[in-house]
């Protein structure tokens, strides 16, 4: 208690020096917290873009379909699987899909397309597909009066085949039974824009796609949206135990390239933040060392009256810890409004960035305990680290020499 009193008194005795040290520390804290917030924010935005756009948080496939997709690697009983998933409390929604490459024809032109069969109702809840419809109506699993199914096409197909809503779209592909899959669909909607990932995709209702590919109720992929997105790895692992015959992967595996790039980028960002913190604390080290040097006589007296080196080290450490806690609170006062503004308003981009039909208009931050606590931990760690050389110097000092110095 005496030590605490002494520490507080020491801090306030040299107001100007303490203020400068505290300012450099709170400045460092604010800078770090904002950088953390913005970097987390942009990563989480990108993750959300991928997972909510089409990937989902967890995906289910048969065998190694994810790495080597083949028409015959199918999940054969999707109805039972769907029921299991519907009864799982961790799952928000899920959707069923089939995929196949195909050739698309209009009267005059042809082009290569990716056919994606989706369950219209489930897909709407799980991915952004319905929101990406730029004109026309979202697909339904009902046939029109002439008994044609409707299809949604990417803008790339609309342009290269020169077709639009209401026109016929002819698809030819290989069926799962080796037959030549061929059928006519009516274009019901255009999806995304010319830069979208879906620009050469044809979306068909699941039933129509299964019929087209002679797949008889089988599917290739289940995409799952979880209630808690941070639990994707754990959830995938536990579901894998429940369904050992299927392959269950979290989005980190499904979008592996993206995830790896993001991780590398994040590590680079962390290295930069580390440098910022390091520079701040070289300054802090300087001030603390200076204060120890200035107080050499004082420590000499303390030692002369019998204070143990340990107590002197504790005193210096306590002073620094107190000072950094104070700086943290001051920093927090400045950081909270700035981060809140980044999180809730963000910087409006002069040109909206388009991610496959999803427009990103704002450069936003993230507000979370992680964003505030991590820089605090770093600051405390560094502050205590710089105490070590200063403390050792003060603790080792000889009273006679110390009191003789100016």
């Amino acid at each position, binding site marked *: 208690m005496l030590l605490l009193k002494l520490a507080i008194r020491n801090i306030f005795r040299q107001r100007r020096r303490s203020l400068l040290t505290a300012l450099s520390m709170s400045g460092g804290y604010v800078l770090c917290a904002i950088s953390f917030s913005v970097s987390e924010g942009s990563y989480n935005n990108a993750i959300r873009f991928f997972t909510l756009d089409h990937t989902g948080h967890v995906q289910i496939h048969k065998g190694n379909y994810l790495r080597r997709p083949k028409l*015959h690697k199918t999940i054969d009983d999707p109805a039972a699987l769907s029921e299991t998933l519907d009864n799982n409390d961790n799952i928000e929604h899920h959707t069923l899909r089939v995929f196949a490459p195909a050739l698309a*024809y209009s009267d005059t032109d042809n082009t290569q397309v990716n056919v994606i069969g989706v369950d219209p109702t489930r897909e709407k809840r799980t991915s952004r597909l319905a929101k990406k419809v730029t004109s026309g109506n979202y697909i339904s699993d009902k046939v029109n009066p002439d008994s044609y199914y409707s299809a949604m096409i990417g803008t790339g197909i609309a342009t290269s085949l020169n077709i639009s809503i209401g026109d016929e779209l*002819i698809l*030819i592909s*290989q*069926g*799962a*039974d*080796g*037959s*030549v899959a*061929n*059928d*006519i669909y009516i274009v019901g909607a255009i999806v995304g824009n010319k830069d979208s990932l879906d620009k050469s995709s044809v979306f068909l209702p699941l039933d129509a796609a299964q019929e087209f590919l*002679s797949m008889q109720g089988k599917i290739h992929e289940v995409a799952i949206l979880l209630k808690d997105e941070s639990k994707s790895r754990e959830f995938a692992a536990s579901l894998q135990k429940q369904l050992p015959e299927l392959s269950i992967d979290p989005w980190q595996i499904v979008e592996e390239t993206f995830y790896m790039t993001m991780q590398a980028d994040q590590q680079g960002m962390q290295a930069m933040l580390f440098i910022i913190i390091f520079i701040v604390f070289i300054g802090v080290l300087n001030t603390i060392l200076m204060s120890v040097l200035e107080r050499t006589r004082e420590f000499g007296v303390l030692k002369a009256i019998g204070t143990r080196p340990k107590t002197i080290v504790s005193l210096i450490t306590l002073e620094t810890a107190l000072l950094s806690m104070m700086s943290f609170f001051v920093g927090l006062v400045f950081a909270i409004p700035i981060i809140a503004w980044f999180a809730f308003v963000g910087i409006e981009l002069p040109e909206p960035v388009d991610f496959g039909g999803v427009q990103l208009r704002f450069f936003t931050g993230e507000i979370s305990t992680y964003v505030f606590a991590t820089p605090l931990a770093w600051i405390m760690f560094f502050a205590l680290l710089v105490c070590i050389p200063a403390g050792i110097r003060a603790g080792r000092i000889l009273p006679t020499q110390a009191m003789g110095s100016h």
Partner: protein
Amino acid sequence: MKRILSLASCIFLALLSQTCLSDQRAIKIIDDVENLYRGESSKATLTMIIETPQYQRTMKMEAKSKGTENAFYRILAPKKDRGISTLKLDEEMWNFFPKINKVIKVPPSMMMGSWMGSDFTNDDLVKQTTLTEEYDLTLNETDELYTIVLVPKQQTITVWGKIDYVINKQHMVPVAQNFYDDDDELIRKMEFTEIREIAGRMVPTSLTMKPLNKEGHKTIVIYDTLEFDPPDVNQKVFTLRNLKSRF
């Protein structure tokens, strides 16, 4: 010296004519055997059974041919594929899909592609007839079999390095065709079995195509009926107009 020279040239000429003769015989044998299924013109109903590790599929179809240049195939069953037709004129090929009412020409790049998901390639349907023109033939024979080794001529465009054509001497019917790649490795095997007498000719009525590089794949073609020179097979059958006609 003169005598030796004339003797040598005699031997040389004799050898030359021998090889020419054997070539001529080989060409004749293959032509005879190839004409077996065709006659001047023919009409057949076939059952094609395609087996793969993933699926098995049975198709019924009708095949018509005239000479070596013209052929017409139409799928009769299953219902989903009914009416899908293929027309071959010389070395060109078209497919017709009634559901989408579209004729699609098979491009040269797709010639080695599978025909309707079977182990036969489009090329098999088109090129089979030109074996004697595009390959150099060597005839080997045993008591029961002729084995003709076909090596592509320099200018021939093909994926095969060599084809063995094995023929039963007694009935003059094919027994097997073995297809090798450029490294002399056996890639696929076609076997002819179930020899029956049809219209006075002995004809193997079952063909099995087995690609050896694809495990578990096999295509069997069974001749359910075969008629030679039927009255309804004429030049009109082998037209794009007929290809597109509904039936």
